[in-house]
């Protein structure tokens, strides 16, 4: 029995880009995910942060088997996904579920809530009607909704309640891993804490793991055991959540956490305003992708891409921490 639930090794996803109607398949390639490795442990949360275009959503899609990796592997409970047959993949899809950002788009408006939650059960398991109804009731109770919610339609619920329905659906097959892609960013501030608490409680009760993707750093730090910071398709820093949040090491992580908004007007925070914007993933800078915006760039950063190396309690991809 492996003690790692999901292991991603050197995962890559490259998208070829065609320009214009007449051009042949060009050499342009977007390296959306470019050599990413991480482990997800049972009952733990891996948080992934980064800005638009850093590859965090593509990473989620690779984990969900919604994209095939260009290279690299995902192992689930010690078995590479590439080796699984159709039945194996079906089993994997049961064990790995997802909750998306927008609960207005992720629930079918023409289905009753009971049918939405029961759908995975009906698809994957041959259960009689009574068992399904009982299970739906349990799941609704789990996420804090009344049993009569099963007979209603999604439009009769608020955003927070809809997100609870989406979570109930994700839980219906007792998954081992749930991919949470921005699960609270579409919700009102007073509702976010409710949903984050619900997710924490469910993890404690059921021992489910999360891959938590969000741009709200405080929420990710709050929820995660490990945080991975991505920039242009690569992980630049990965380590224990509290440590990364308290003392970020990579200059990009430092700037990102410095840009997080304060929770109090007197909160002392160093103002690091990064120059420029995230470069186009079509033509990322040479060497370390971050060097054009980095205040501490060294000469070798422009030519040599730094490897993700152990540094204290975590791994950092930065030449500043190269062994002398």
């Amino acid at each position, binding site marked *: 029995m492996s003690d790692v639930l999901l292991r991603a090794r050197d995962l890559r996803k490259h998208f070829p880009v065609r320009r214009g109607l007449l051009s042949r398949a060009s050499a342009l390639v977007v390296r959306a995910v470019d050599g990413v490795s991480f482990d997800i442990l049972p009952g733990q949360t891996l948080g992934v942060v980064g*800005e638009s275009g850093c590859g965090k959503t593509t990473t989620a899609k690779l984990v969900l088997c919604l994209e095939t990796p260009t290279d690299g592997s995902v192992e689930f409970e010690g078995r590479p996904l590439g080796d699984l047959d159709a039945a194996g993949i079906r089993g994997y899809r049961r064990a790995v579920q997802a909750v998306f950002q927008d609960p207005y788009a992720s629930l079918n408006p023409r289905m009753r809530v009971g049918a939405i939650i029961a759908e995975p059960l009906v698809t994957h398991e041959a259960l009689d009607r009574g068992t399904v109804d009982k299970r739906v009731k349990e799941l609704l109770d789990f996420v804090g909704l009344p049993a009569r919610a099963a007979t209603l339609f999604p439009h009769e619920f608020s955003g927070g309640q809809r997100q609870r329905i989406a979570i109930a659906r994700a839980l219906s097959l007792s998954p081992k891993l749930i991919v949470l892609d921005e699960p609270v960013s579409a919700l009102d501030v007073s509702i976010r*804490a409710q949903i984050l608490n619900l997710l924490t*409680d469910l993890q404690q009760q059921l021992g489910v793991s999360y891959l938590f993707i969000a741009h709200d750093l*405080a929420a990710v*730090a709050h929820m*995660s055991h490990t945080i991975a910071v991505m920039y242009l398709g690569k992980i630049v820093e990965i380590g224990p959540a509290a440590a990364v949040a*308290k003392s970020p090491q990579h200059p990009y992580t430092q700037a990102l956490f410095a840009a997080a908004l304060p929770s109090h007007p007197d909160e002392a925070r160093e103002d690091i305003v990064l120059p420029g914007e995230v470069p186009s993933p079509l033509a990322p800078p040479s060497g370390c992708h971050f060097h054009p915006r980095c205040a501490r760039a060294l000469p070798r950063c422009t030519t040599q891409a730094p490897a993700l190396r152990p540094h204290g309690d975590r791994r950092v991809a930065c030449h500043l921490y190269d062994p002398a």
Partner: protein
Amino acid sequence: MAEPLLELRGLSTHYVSAGGARVTRAVDDVSLTLERGRTLGIVGESGSGKSTLALSIMRLLPPAARAVGGEIRFEGEDLLRKSAVEMRRIRGKRIAMILQDPMASLNPLFTIGDQVAESLRVHEGASRPTAWTRARGLLEAVRISAPAARMTEFPHQMSGGMRQRIVGAIAVACEPRLLIADEPTTSLDLTIQAQYLSLLRDLQRQHDLAMIFITHNLGIVAKMCDAVAVMYAGRVVEAGPIRQIFNKPAHPYTRALLESVPRLTDDTHARLPAIEGQPPDPSAPPAGCAFHPRCPVVLERCREQAPPSVTVAAGQTARCWLHMP
């Protein structure tokens, strides 16, 4: 003591639908003041009326909405008494606005230069070449690189952060006294948001600009504002200087809102103190104090009577029965 730049007195804006049968009190008896060069944050959740409040000040309400009472005193004049023609001379000239989505506020068919120069030509009657030169200076001021080349480009050629900076350039073009920003950074990435907020602060200093930040994000308020007003179901439930509100919130809603936000410095995995229940439906708010169904310290009278606004400390007001003798 000079008169404040902007003073709202008992402002109420209602949406009327179904032939007058249904009235939604989107903004209900709101009184606020804003001094020159200062920044006021207006926080609230969806349906709290914060955006309707901004549109009321701009007199840009949709046809179904009407300001039914109160005054909006701006530089000593009541904006509610202005004619449409007079308002057009104020909007963009003395009061400017930045909206959430910069792609929606820029015209995709005109060049950046035309759009930045437009307000100078309309409001100040600047000639084409003068307006063009000044527009280029404005782009430089909002830190657009190679401004001369960008002038002839179109909005779709810009990134989200650049578009929002261009909207900022248009807003300050005519040296307004008041800038209303409605969720200006919601669509931006974190590091780009940091750039934009520091830019707004620089513009504010250079132009002695007063700002109103409409947001749901308490972090933006903590970073940018001098004072804050918290809205709930159309009413300002608490208002005051920022440090006072963050240190000693008087209203249970404000307190709960501040506590429910995860902090970077927190111990992880602890439960967050959440506010139970849902924000009310603005067209059918609960009787009495609208927060009473979710309030942890609710009193009997909260269910029947709406609390008046009382001063709880210097410059700090709250609408809560707990603070009534």
